[in-house]
């Protein structure tokens, strides 16, 4: 089930604030923020880069290999979004190559299923 752009924006901004609150509330100093949110129907994974960018993935609770997927998405972002000189930072990403490669990475992760990617 796809989220509309509006819903995505809402989710992103809400999550950003929750992430901020979460890090402040954490009993451990230097908390890395919310890395995973688990519910009955889905799991939300978040990866924050040293530059403050957050990659958020919503997946089936049984799906494995999300960590490596998040790192892969970071690489795809740094390649196809950032190296495209016509993409301006902080704007929505409308780069075809980015979308294509992202789809490929998602397909690989999905095929791996609940047992994680093979050797």
């Amino acid at each position, binding site marked *: 089930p796809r989220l509309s752009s509006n819903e995505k924006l809402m989710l992103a901004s809400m999550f950003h604030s929750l992430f901020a609150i979460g890090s402040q509330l954490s009993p451990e100093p230097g908390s890395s923020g919310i890395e995973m949110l688990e519910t009955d129907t889905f799991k939300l994974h978040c990866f924050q880069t040293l530059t403050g960018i957050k990659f958020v993935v919503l997946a089936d609770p049984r799906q494995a290999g999300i960590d490596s997927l998040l*790192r892969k998405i970071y690489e795809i972002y740094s390649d196809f979004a950032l190296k495209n000189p016509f993409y301006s930072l902080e704007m929505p990403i409308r780069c075809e190559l980015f979308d294509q490669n992202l789809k490929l990475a998602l397909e690989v992760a999905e095929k791996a299923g609940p047992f994680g990617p093979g050797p």
Partner: protein
Amino acid sequence: MYWYLPFISPSASMHLMSSELFTLTYGALVTQLCKDYENDEDVNKQLDKMGYNIGVRLIEDFLARSNVGRCHDFRETADVIAKVAFKMYLGITPSITNWSPAGDEFSLILENNPLVDFVELPDNHSSLIYSNLLCGVLRGALEMVQMAVDVKFVQDTLKGDSVTEIRMKFIRRIEDNLPVGEE
């Protein structure tokens, strides 16, 4: 002359690129700027601006590929810049020297600079900082990881010095856009 980009991660393939093409491209860029702007100071500023735009994007590529974590102090930052970043992107490893007593300034000494292979500065461009792009790149990249720095060339082989020296000074931590969770 060719150089091999180091094999950093499983998805970064081994690239073979002609460094002559790189030197020529950078040279074409600088000479065009000189024609467009006519005075060296403006060209220096433009190079710095362009470098900055490269730096803010390059940092993500660097972090995604090199997997280095956050640096805890400026010394660690210096090490990462010289030993990982320069190696990864330019194939050289500058040495780190001349630490200030407060530990907030250091120099990068480059024995050779791939940008200036075969280049000679003519007399009418004596105040041109040919490799100023590098200063912008370093400044932009560090700004994205919340460090405000001042970067400038203090020695340049193009101007007759024996080595190329870049001085980097830590100004302050950028607190306003701190990724949450960092103390």
